[in-house]
């Protein structure tokens, strides 16, 4: 059967709805209701009566992936739904692709882009510049919005081939580079903050090197799953107690 071609207005509605994918996130089936909410305008265009009902029930199955990489998946799903011969593959595709996309998205966006954007913005923040807000939002949202918009249209136009397009991006490798860059920036940021503090206290910058073992010990404790809250409050208690004792 020939593709009907989903009108652009409906595709636009689906894409915009994807920004609310997680509004009903639940422990039982995670993003299932969100997925149906996002796809519903297109499903109601493609199907009627019982077919529509079956399509809705199909998309109420358990589903979970990274919210930004969900858009390319939704585009591909619509391409598959649009070809009746491949309808069976919709569920197969969803279950096959959700976990790898989730892993890539988590690593790239939450583990890579977000810490990097935050570290860069913090340089501005510690200088007291409100420009940090614009820096942070721009750095994070350029790739974010690219995946949500371009990724969706590519998913729809390329169909199942969009998976190869995503693979070409080599997100896990990029995430690793971003993390390395974040660590380097983090070192610079801590040095900058240490320098500012020592300068304010009229102390020699050389004392700042003592911060390194402190950071390594706290990092080791965090790796040992000591609560961040406990670490932060303990540090504050020690800092407040030292002048009292002295």
């Amino acid at each position, binding site marked *: 059967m020939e593709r009907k071609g989903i009108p652009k207005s409906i595709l636009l509605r689906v894409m915009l709805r994807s920004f609310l994918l997680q509004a009903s996130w639940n422990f039982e089936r995670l993003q299932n209701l969100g997925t149906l909410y996002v796809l519903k305008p297109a499903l109601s265009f493609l199907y009627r009566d019982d077919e529509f009902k079956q399509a809705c029930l199909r998309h109420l199955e358990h589903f979970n992936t990274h*919210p930004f990489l969900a858009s390319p998946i939704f585009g591909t799903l619509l391409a598959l739904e649009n070809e009746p011969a491949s309808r069976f593959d919709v569920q197969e595709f969803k279950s096959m692709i959700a976990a790898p996309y989730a892993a890539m998205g988590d690593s790239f966006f939450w583990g890579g882009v977000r810490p990097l954007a935050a570290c860069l913005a913090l340089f501005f923040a510690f200088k007291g510049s409100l420009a940090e807000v614009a820096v942070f939002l721009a750095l994070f949202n350029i790739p974010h919005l690219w995946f949500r918009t371009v990724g969706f249209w590519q998913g729809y136009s390329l169909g199942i081939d969009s998976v190869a397009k995503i693979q070409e991006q080599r997100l896990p490798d990029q995430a690793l580079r971003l993390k390395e860059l974040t660590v380097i920036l983090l070192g610079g940021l801590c040095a900058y903050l240490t320098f500012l503090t020592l300068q*304010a206290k009229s102390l020699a910058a050389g004392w700042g090197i003592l911060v390194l073992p402190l950071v390594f010990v706290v990092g080791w404790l965090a790796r040992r799953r000591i609560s961040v809250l406990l670490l932060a409050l303990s540090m504050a208690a020690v800092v407040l107690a030292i002048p009292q004792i002295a």
Partner: protein
Amino acid sequence: MPVADYLLAAGVAVGCGLDRTAALQMMISRPLVAGPLTGWVLGNAVAGLEVGSLIELLWLGRLPIGAAVPPDDTQVAVGGTALAVLAGPTFGMIGFPSVLLCTLLALPLGKVGELFDRLARYWNDRLALQAQKGVAENRFASVERCHLLGLVHFGLSSLATYAVIVIFGSVALHWLVPVLYAPVVRSAAWLRLGLPLVGAAVLLGTINVNRSLLLFGVSFAAVLLTLAVL
């Protein structure tokens, strides 16, 4: 008027809270943005900037993966800023020490956010079941209704966390200001360094990069040396 200001900040709390999971996820929920935004609404963006920069790194490494619910640093930033800007001056606190004390107070109170967030997600379980029932009975509009009700759940969760931080924080300030304000003023500069350092250490400990300690150490020493020489 203070009550109107608290309500304005509550609006920011809900808006930013929804951005955490339920809607957009454009990161206006991060402390670096939510803090200054709250401060700007309350007429002191710099206080919000200071709160945000103190806590941004603390839970940055906690990823919202699958069913994991990270600590609600959004409401810590919004509530901490509201306390610093609105409650601080009524206790005679001003400037950065006020920001510090209010942030230290908001941090443990923000733990309750995890509980409220989980509750919202449990309520959403019912919505998914209701929608499924609705579709089975050909009531297809129930999909939109149930899904968007989830926004209300997440919004209420954010509001409840903000309310706990602001109400209990204001009460706690009564007791803590006489005891802790003077020491906080004395140690303000070290606390300004300490909190981001703890955050950086936690991020470093959890970022999962080979040779991370070496990269961090070299970068730290190089920048410190450069700044000292310049």
